[in-house]
């Protein structure tokens, strides 16, 4: 089944947990929770605004994790934290800081995965160990420019899935699915058996369906957060995410035909 991971900026509104539940009810397979950072290097205008709005509300990592802990009984799907290196590495282990403590705090709040876009595989050793020790999947990202040897290492060391950054750009909505998306997803699938989720710039159910024809699923971020910033309700977002779910399910139904076709034609790709 094609995976649908919608993204939600933690604390974007006082009732942000209601959006999370709406995503779950609409058929999300997991939700990526953004832990807002003041200087999000890889985020475009929409996620920047979402982060700023949350930070202006006084949201912290601690408050987001407390909200998730309080909502634990209502959450049935995996949660994946997405944030930047400074929040992960902050502080010394002797004072309750560092990635070891950070990962334990995530696990205690029911989070099972972590994505840190400014920690590439070369800088990931300590975080890798800390995450594994806490039972957290450290998801690594691959980009269209990633050369083959790095891609193999990313495939080998990523946990949970591999995040395919579909386009050479920041997060944000795009009119068209990037041409770089499908070739990248195919290259990643050659080096790993992990699922490959395609993210960055996937803005419509049609784009999600197109991406899912090569990848194993999609991450939807800015397209949803723009709606929340514009004042859309959890019910509105439930409908939005459900439309993505429907589009992905339709791809699933196409697949046996495609596989049959591949077998007939001898195309093993």
């Amino acid at each position, binding site marked *: 089944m094609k995976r649908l991971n919608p993204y939600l900026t933690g604390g974007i509104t006082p009732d942000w947990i209601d959006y999370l539940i709406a995503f779950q009810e609409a058929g999300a397979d997991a939700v990526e929770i953004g832990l807002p950072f003041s200087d999000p290097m890889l985020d475009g205008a929409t996620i920047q605004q979402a982060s700023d709005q949350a930070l202006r509300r006084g949201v912290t990592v601690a408050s987001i994790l407390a909200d998730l802990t309080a909502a634990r009984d209502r959450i049935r799907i995996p949660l994946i934290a997405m944030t930047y290196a400074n929040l992960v590495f902050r502080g010394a282990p002797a004072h309750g800081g560092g990635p070891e403590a950070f990962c334990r705090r995530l696990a205690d709040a029911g989070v099972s995965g972590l994505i840190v876009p400014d920690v590439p595989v070369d800088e990931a050793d300590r975080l890798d160990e800390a995450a594994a020790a806490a039972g957290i999947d450290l998801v690594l990202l691959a980009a269209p*420019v990633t050369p083959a040897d790095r891609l193999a290492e990313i495939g080998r060391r990523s946990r949970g899935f591999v995040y395919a950054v579909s386009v050479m750009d920041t997060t944000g909505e795009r009119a068209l699915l990037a041409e770089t998306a499908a070739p990248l997803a195919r290259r990643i699938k050659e080096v790993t058996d992990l699922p490959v989720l395609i993210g960055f710039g996937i803005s419509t159910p049609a784009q999600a369906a197109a991406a899912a024809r090569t990848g194993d699923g999609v991450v939807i971020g800015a397209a949803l957060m723009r709606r929340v910033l514009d004042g859309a309700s959890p019910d509105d977002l439930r409908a939005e995410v459900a439309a993505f779910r429907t589009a992905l399910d339709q791809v699933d139904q196409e697949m046996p035909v495609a596989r049959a076709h591949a077998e007939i034609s001898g195309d093993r790709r």
Partner: protein
Amino acid sequence: MNATAPGAVIGSVMGEPSATGRFGQFGGRYVPESLVPACAALEAAFRDAWADPAFHERLARLRSEFAGRPTALTPALNLSAQLGVTLLLKREDLAHTGSHKINNVLGQALLAQRMGKTHLIAETGAGQHGVATATAAALFGMRATVYMGERDIARQQLNVFRMELLGAEVIPVTSGSRTLKDATNEAMRAWVAAVDEAHFCLGSVGGPHPYPWLVRELQRVIGEEARAQVPATPDVVVACVGGGSNAAGTFAGFVDTPARLIGVEAAGGAAMTDGRPGVVHGYRSLVLQDDDGQVLEAESIAAGLDYPGVGPEHAHLGTTGRAEYRTVTDGEVLDAVRRLARSEGIICALESAHAVAWVLRAAGTPDLPTGSTVLLTLSGRGDKDMATLAGEVR
């Protein structure tokens, strides 16, 4: 004085960083995967160019024929007499475009050309690095895009006009504190989207590996020239520190001497003094941040020092005790601009005046005893600050 005897660190400091781009525990390459190959390619190109005599020859010609190097070493005779110290000024304000920033940019533009890049992307605070980048782009026939905080655009209008006259596109940055920190974020985002044809022409000794090393090596010319110009090793070498490029270049020329190395920060943007270990803009260093790890907005009258981080090598030099860092206030800086102007006939930049302000305060105290010889890098000239000064200095 230093905790570490300078003799103990000769040859081991201000050399090449580790294979992962570290100076002690600081530095590294904390960038999105999309930028890792570009950083690796830049590192390879720099190693190649730096080993190539033809590259050094071209750079040397540009420095002498275009940038006006070597810059003068001016004994500040009147201030020296007033303060009871021998004050020598390394005159980067006399370099083309009015600051040391041209040293770095000419080297990076040559490197970009060698890599087949046609577009320079830069961040700027006070506009000096932006002007230098626009200048090099004009000279090399490249496109230049400069990201500048909206607040800095308002207070450094002259430099915005200079950049535009030189043919650069200046893009106002409206996010966050609307200063250098946010301009740097935006420049890095732009680089992700244009990495094939664009070189990120970073202006200071921060950023992901190899930038802190690359920029320090390109600024080393300040320290090496000064070392050849001084009659004897000075007791103290002092420079202002925002990101820290003019200080790094100056210190590199004296790190293997007994001279004390002093960096002077803005009190409102003092990462060496008030920062905690953190990761921002692709490198690990000391960073002004709150208890939750959110980066704080610096606050200085000098746009070029209005930055919450500091180059990782400074964090290392400070941690090991080889260099010392001090802070001065905006008020002391304004007094220093006026005092230098009236005593020596030199109007320096607000950034550079931080180093002057420390000398004015410390002279005759145990921090800078009477009779000391001080080499001070005057990193830039003050024309760009006239609007600010007109409102503040009477």
